[in-house]
């Protein structure tokens, strides 16, 4: 149908984990379920989880093959940005997908990322929770308010060109990820913001696909005062350095 299917692209899916013994198994099952006709590999970057995550990954390797699931562990918690960087070094695909291990990112959206990239030739496809066919479940009113306020502030200050700045469910062309990741210095979710803003400034073609986000980490007060301060500092940093 006019699509260049002869050039089979390989997709490297990098999943950083820390104490995700059960979730990593579920995620990998779902990835294999939804990417049946796709050439891909999963790279699990585990930061020395004490709960035996790596043992479960080894069991999964027996089921799915050691060439499909790569375990590239690190000795201890070393941060998200470096986890992607570490995974990238072992990635053999032309495209790299990053996603969370806690099932807030559902692998059923992977085909839509891939399809969007093929259709538009984009350098980066980022998942957005804040559009009509997307959504979030598990947030109370306060959380939604903070999220919305943070988003409006970031849009006003940065004009980023994407609707969901802090999302971490993304597909990158391999060389683009390498380029952008080398110029980012932030940590945590500000890192995700910095990645997409720098990519936007560099003129990369960025597309969005709707995703749904089920927050199962109930009761974890991930948004305290210090998080908000970090966020504002991150915004100012991005305002003046990008």
């Amino acid at each position, binding site marked *: 149908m006019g699509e260049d299917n002869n050039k089979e692209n390989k997709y490297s899916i990098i999943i950083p984990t820390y104490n995700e*013994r*059960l979730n990593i*198994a*579920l995620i990998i*099952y*779902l990835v294999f379920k939804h990417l049946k006709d796709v050439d891909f590999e999963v790279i699990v970057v585990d930061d020395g989880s004490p709960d035996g995550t790596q*043992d*479960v990954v080894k*069991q*999964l390797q*027996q*089921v799915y093959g050691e060439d499909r699931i790569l375990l590239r562990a690190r000795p201890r918690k070393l941060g998200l940005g470096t986890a992607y960087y570490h995974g990238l070094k072992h990635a053999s695909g032309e495209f790299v997908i990053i996603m969370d291990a806690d*099932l807030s990112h*559902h692998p059923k959206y992977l085909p839509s990322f891939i399809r969007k990239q093929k259709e538009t030739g984009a350098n980066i496809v980022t998942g957005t*929770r*804040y*559009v*009509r*066919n*997307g*959504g*979030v*479940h*598990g947030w109370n*009113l306060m959380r*939604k*308010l903070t999220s*919305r*306020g943070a*988003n*409006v*502030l970031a*849009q*006003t200050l*940065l*004009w980023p060109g994407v609707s969901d700045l802090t999302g971490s469910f993304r597909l990158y062309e391999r060389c683009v990820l390498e380029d952008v990741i080398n110029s980012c210095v932030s940590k945590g979710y500000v890192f995700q913001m910095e990645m997409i803003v720098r990519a936007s*400034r560099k003129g990369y073609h960025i597309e969005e696909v709707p995703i*749904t986000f*089920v927050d199962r980490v109930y009761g974890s007060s991930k948004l305290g005062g210090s998080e908000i301060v970090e966020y504002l500092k991150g915004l100012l940093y991005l*305002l*003046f*350095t*990008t």
Partner: protein
Amino acid sequence: MKHVLKIMALLVAISAFWIGLLETSVVPRSYTWLLAIYLIVSLGCYGLLMVGIGLMLFPTCPQEAVLLQKDIAEAKEFLKNKGVDVGSD
């Protein structure tokens, strides 16, 4: 060009235009600070409006939680049969 410079350039352009209007007496001197106040208040109102609208139209997906539970059950079933330890959380 750095993004913040773009914003500064825009502000400088607007200020220059306004000062021009003041200097040529198209606008009386007593109105000097009106533009700044007007812009800041407008920006604030716009921000609040966007937050309010966004909050009202915030997309939710309660059915996804249900679907997820189904997927989890399916995954556990499959993996248990293949010898993967899915007992603990």
